[in-house]
């Protein structure tokens, strides 16, 4: 592998032309590097360098070019670069540096570089101004009630959206850069008085260990730092909504913002969060609680229904009411597949339809659902390729699975495993499957915190946001992993 040249210890000389050539040479194959020579009113020249499309050109003209051209009096005790940075430029954030590495990373992140004649130091000026998508409601996290703003791809902008929700100096954000080639900006955010310092230290330790070419999305980090790498269950929360991040920070969690993606990661992640909806906290708690219970039931149905039907049909046929048993036998008559093959086939077809519906434009997606679900389904039953009861069982499981999108992967794999177990051992197979699954769920940790900590250390307060959502009047404490400052409301 060809090594990336390290410029962290390279410094500039005093010759502005040589310095300019050095920068040009570094970016010799980059077509969007722009440079503009400025003859100042003080008798020396400067060169401003930036990447087109990443900067606010108007800001460069007004905050850098204009004051330099119009400058008249330059006799001060300060060095030339200090004088330009502190007394001349109108820019809000100016950094004086001699290290080429710092200059490059600044330029690559939308800053402008100002080279000054006869100066070994250059100025890195904040002129970020790339286009962003702006605030829009996240497609996957729509709510009927509550805030509708969502993150976009600019980390700074996302940070501002969170800060707008948390108007307190307690809010902390630490920046680091990850990815050998992408040098992606990553922010770690937390509320200093609530966060468990041990968890914060652990997260930083894991982030520091990351050694990868590029970080293009939060999931890169998620997969690299997660506790149980082989687990089907999530060990970190993700959201595109600033209100959700703010709420999680208020519970003592840590947020990780990655530049270039609207998805923000929160840690630690409890298993109960899989059943929580963003809207739960904006609507009446009784309605939210019933919806949460339905989601839990749906998870159970999504995993178990095809397997249970398989077990009933092949091993416990006597449990079916006689009329239904005859109906099942009748509908299975002529179907060329075994019940196992049929259920696996249907599960795969359902996943294909779901995935296709997601990738298609919305209008085509609706048509596809109708054609796929109704027309093909009915035709397949009529043609005796599949049986209607199995189709209903798989469809019920599929629709139930849509209620718990955060458990999508787990539901898909568990459904297949459970069907296989049921085809071997009937209902006992399902019981064995659930026993192993529950043991696994209880063993999952997120950043070292048990994802079922509220159940392993049950307290009346800790259970008030698990199986149901209690009213804000009664939820007085934060989750138990906060450890300190646990009182949320007096």
């Amino acid at each position, binding site marked *: 592998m060809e090594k990336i040249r390290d410029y962290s210890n390279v410094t500039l000389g005093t010759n502005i032309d040589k310095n300019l050539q050095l920068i040009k040479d570094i970016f010799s194959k980059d077509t969007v590097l722009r440079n503009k020579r400025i003859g100042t009113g003080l008798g020396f020249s400067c060169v401003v360098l930036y990447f087109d499309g990443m900067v606010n050109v108007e800001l460069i003209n007004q905050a850098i070019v204009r004051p330099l051209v119009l400058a008249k009096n330059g006799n001060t005790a300060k060095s030339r670069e200090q004088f330009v940075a502190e007394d001349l430029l109108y820019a809000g954030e100016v950094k004086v540096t001699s290290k080429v590495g710092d200059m490059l990373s600044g330029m690559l992140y939308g800053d402008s570089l100002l080279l000054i004649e006869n100066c070994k130091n250059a100025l890195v000026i904040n002129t970020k101004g790339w286009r962003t998508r702006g605030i829009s409601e996240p497609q996957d996290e729509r709510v009927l009630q509550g805030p509708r703003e969502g993150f976009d791809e600019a980390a700074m902008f996302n940070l501002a959206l969170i800060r707008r929700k948390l108007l307190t100096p307690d809010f902390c954000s630490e920046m680091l850069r990850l990815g050998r080639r992408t040098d992606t900006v990553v922010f770690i955010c937390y509320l200093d008085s609530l966060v468990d310092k041990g968890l914060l230290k652990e997260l930083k330790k894991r982030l520091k260990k990351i050694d990868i070419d590029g970080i293009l999305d939060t999931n890169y980090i998620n997969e690299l730092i997660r506790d149980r790498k082989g687990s089907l269950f999530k060990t970190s929360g993700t959201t595109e909504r600033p209100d959700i991040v703010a709420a999680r920070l208020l519970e003592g969690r840590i947020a990780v913002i990655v530049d270039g993606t609207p998805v923000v990661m929160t840690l630690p992640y409890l298993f109960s969060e899989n059943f929580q909806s963003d809207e739960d906290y904006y609507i009446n708690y009784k309605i939210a609680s019933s919806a949460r219970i339905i989601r839990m039931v749906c998870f159970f149905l999504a995993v178990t229904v095809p397997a249970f039907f398989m077990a009933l049909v092949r091993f416990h046929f*006597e449990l079916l009411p006689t009329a239904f*048993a005859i109906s099942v036998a009748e509908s299975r008559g002529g179907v060329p597949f075994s019940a196992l093959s049929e259920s696996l086939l249907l599960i795969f077809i359902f996943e294909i339809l779901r995935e296709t519906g997601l990738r298609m434009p919305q209008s085509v997606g609706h048509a596809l659902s109708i054609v796929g679900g109704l027309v093909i389904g009915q035709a397949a039953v009529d043609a005796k390729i599949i049986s209607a009861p199995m189709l209903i069982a798989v469809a019920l499981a599929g629709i139930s699975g849509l209620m718990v999108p955060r458990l999508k992967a787990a539901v898909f794999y568990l459904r297949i495993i459970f069907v296989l177990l049921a085809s071997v051992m009937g209902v006992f197979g399902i019981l064995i499957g659930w026993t192993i699954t529950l043991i696994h769920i209880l063993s999952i940790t997120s950043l070292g915190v048990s994802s079922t900590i509220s159940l392993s250390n049950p307290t009346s307060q800790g259970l008030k946001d698990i199986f149901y959502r209690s009213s804000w009047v009664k939820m007085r404490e934060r989750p138990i992993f906060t450890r300190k400052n646990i009182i949320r409301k007096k």
Partner: protein
Amino acid sequence: MKRLIFILLSSLLLLLSGCGREPDKTFLVSAVCFENKEGKILVTAEYISVSDTDVKEGYTAKTASIEAEGVSAAVSRLSGDMTKVLSFSHCAVVMLGKNLTAQNTRDVLSFLKNEEISLSATLVCVDDASVLNAETDSNLSTGYALVSLLKSRGELFGYGTHTKIYEISTARKQKTNIFAIPYVTLKDKKLSADGMMLYLDDTPRLKLDTKESIYYAMARNVYEGGMIEIEDRVEKQKATKIKEKEQEKDNLTLSSNIESEEIKNELEAFINEMQRKGIYLFSSHGFKNIKIEGESPD
């Protein structure tokens, strides 16, 4: 190592996934009849045949019979002769031929315990398996039609609902060693269940008509309320409870919550008549006279 275990487990899972029985590869037996034919056991099964192809969709009830030396052998041979496996899991009725000997009956009842047949299937007594050819208004099978018929008669007259396999097993374990099951016959090619067959020591001993069946149910404390004909009128009787109250030499006094004196007298007469025939309906027996008082039991 992990990969090897995964491959082994997956292979095992896939290999074993062929276990179990496909519902379309079985015949669902709805009723089974056991008879004694010249010392051999004749088994007749009514089963539901589901169409394998879509040429003619639907299902039909068919019968098949075979005879063998013993009950198990007969059932095995019957299953072996069929094109699909016989499944007794949805068998609703087990018919005992009137000519079964005590040993035959015991063999059948012990066979039922071991078979996959549901213990909640109803036991009935029949003259022979021709009952399975009855014309019924059920679109399923004679077996299921018979269950519906017995249920409606039970609801109307208040007896006959306690004749499931597990209930008969319990009754057989009692000291009296008697049990009664519905007696089903064919009348004008239609099913008729107008009484019960009383078994003593696993042998059909006495045929009870509807009224006697009601009194038998009252005496055995399984009466659930229904209509009783008294002379020319019909009386409605609530569920009854009979309790042994007092024993004195040859006399046994029972207490009951029956209000009608006529019903009480008829029940008293029925119980005494049974006593005379050597059929003791109560666990303590050997009394010459049994009397019923009108007190309500607790």
